[in-house]
């Protein structure tokens, strides 16, 4: 998925996630150059994959939108206008859920700055098979701690890319995920 996060001088916060589903979508290219999506793959249907249980609420129907893990997220103070605002988004399907959760915990609960919050190693609990994935930034001692709780830990190079902006009163900062070589955050 592609991510855009903007906090502008007009006091409006925007987070956009867009997608073609698979890389290059369906691979179908129209004569004028439009690549078409493969979003039907996000629906569930019987016999789609062997040994799976399709989600009955996500069955294919004309005009219907499928379940998606596009999760542009905005945080504002619960009371009043003063305090911390966060806008964030993440790529890579269901791994966006664990990515955003951990970044928000780092910022809102652990009171870490945004750069550190994005840089820390991340984990992702995979349902099938029941494995705990961790990324390359995750510390070995933390893996041992998790293994002591019975987690089957598997290390992956990259789990998700999270881009974020944060506003504290009148100070706004945008931060890109340090795992991305191409992303850029620009601040006024």
């Amino acid at each position, binding site marked *: *998925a592609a*991510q*855009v*996060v903007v906090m*502008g*001088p007009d006091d409006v*916060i*925007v*987070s*956009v996630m*867009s997608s073609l*589903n*698979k*890389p290059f979508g369906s691979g179908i290219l*129209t*004569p004028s*150059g*439009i690549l*078409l*999506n493969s*979003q*039907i*793959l996000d629906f569930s*249907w*019987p016999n789609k994959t062997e040994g799976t249980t399709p*989600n*009955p609420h996500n069955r*294919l129907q*004309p005009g219907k939108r499928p*379940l998606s893990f*596009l*999760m*542009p*997220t905005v*945080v*504002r*103070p*619960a009371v009043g206008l003063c305090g911390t605002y966060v806008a964030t988004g993440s790529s890579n*399907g*269901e791994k*966006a*859920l664990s990515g955003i959760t951990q970044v928000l*915990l780092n910022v*809102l*609960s652990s*009171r870490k700055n945004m750069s550190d919050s994005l840089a820390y190693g991340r984990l*992702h*609990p995979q*349902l*099938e098979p*029941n494995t705990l994935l961790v990324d390359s930034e995750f510390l070995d001692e933390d893996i041992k701690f998790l293994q002591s*709780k019975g*987690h089957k830990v598997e290390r992956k190079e990259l789990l998700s890319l999270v881009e974020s902006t944060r506003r504290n009163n009148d*100070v706004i900062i945008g931060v890109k995920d340090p795992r991305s*070589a*191409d992303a*850029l955050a*620009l*601040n*006024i």
Partner: protein
Amino acid sequence: LVADKEPSPETTLGSAYSPVDYMSITSFPKLPEDDVLPGENAMKSRKEDDNVLSEQDTDPDLFLKSARLQRLPSSASDLATHEDGTFRETTTDPFTQECACQRDGLTVIITACLTFATGVTIALIVQIYCGDPQVFNQGAVVTDVAQCTSLGFGVLEKQGSSVDAAIAAALCLGIVHPHTSGIGGGGVMLVHEIRKNDTRVIDFRETAPSVITEDMLQTTLDAKPGLLVGVPGMLSGLNQAHQLYGRLPWKDVITMVADVARNGFNVTHELAQALADAKNQNMSKAFEDLFLPNGQAPLSGVFSRRMDLAIILDAVAVKGISEFYSGNLTQEIVAAVQEKGGVLTEEDLNKYSTVLRKPAEINYQGHHVMAPPAPHAGIALLTALNILEGYNITNQLSRQSTFHWIAESVKIALAMASEIGDPMFDTSVSEIVAKMLSKPHASQFRQMIDDSQTFSADHYTQTFTLEKGAG
């Protein structure tokens, strides 16, 4: 204190000695001697403190004369004409209101100053609220691609709105990162207005074509990739966002994006990797001609242009999104899909509409967290936060101690997410959503988490298969 409550002649005289107010004394009625007596002590005290008033000033008539003489020292030539006989006792103010300003320059000056200050203050307030900003406030733009971040930033510098910037950057990503998004796809936008405290979710995800059935998908989809294509929503959604929040003209925003395609960009690391992966797959000849010239994936840093997309975007800038949803492009898209075994029709594109939703939201440790509602998994994020809130995670806790809680909470949230779908087609989804957003329900899940060991997701709740790469 007595003088404050009931002004006696003496106190009035005392205050009248003020140069500002002496005029009122000139018309002061003659004071009976008897009236002075109750304030005799105060009078004495006043006399002691006052170096100007003499003994004879206790007589109001004499005071009036001396006061006038004291206040007109520069009018010495006129004094000659002001003999004692010219002073008469009056019952009305001889100085009418109309000519008061001529008599007291200080009053005029003070009035003018106050008027001027009031005017300036009002003008400043009006300028702050209605005028152009004199100081360019802070802002930030973040995207997956440096060039698209710069484009979004440029839109802000041209006084575009945050949504204008987001529209330009999102379309730019479709040009520079065609493996992740594009006008042939869809997405979700969340917009929060701080001052109005108003939030909208603009859902422009693709929809299933009108004649597609599950039976059609019981085939080898690699042979019929056209069946995978949903009705694209990207341009419709961004146009809707622009209508709601845009500040620059649509044409200007889209033309700036078209310029990126026209003027070119460098292939990013990510695109180079995606193209290298695509090279090993069975892609169409048109795809290979465009993205894999000479059968080779371009390296990162190679300069590239997309004149084809520039032409499309120029047309959309001028004619609007009807060019895509009910114009020549529509027929072309339908033909390309049907050629690959798909069932997309022109009517599907004609009828596509963006959905405006309110966000799913919870309070988390004094913060209000907002995410897209079903069929998006934003509510799963809120479920995870609801569960984790009960652990009272603070910066006093080591990060390591939270990992197990995070792993189990996200696992539960994922399992719950595997149940949701489009609530517009299945009303029972609303019940699942209500359960996912419930704090008491989160508390029950938290009690099921064992701090010393992990469980699989079905220990907590039923699970369905999550489609690989969803979104």
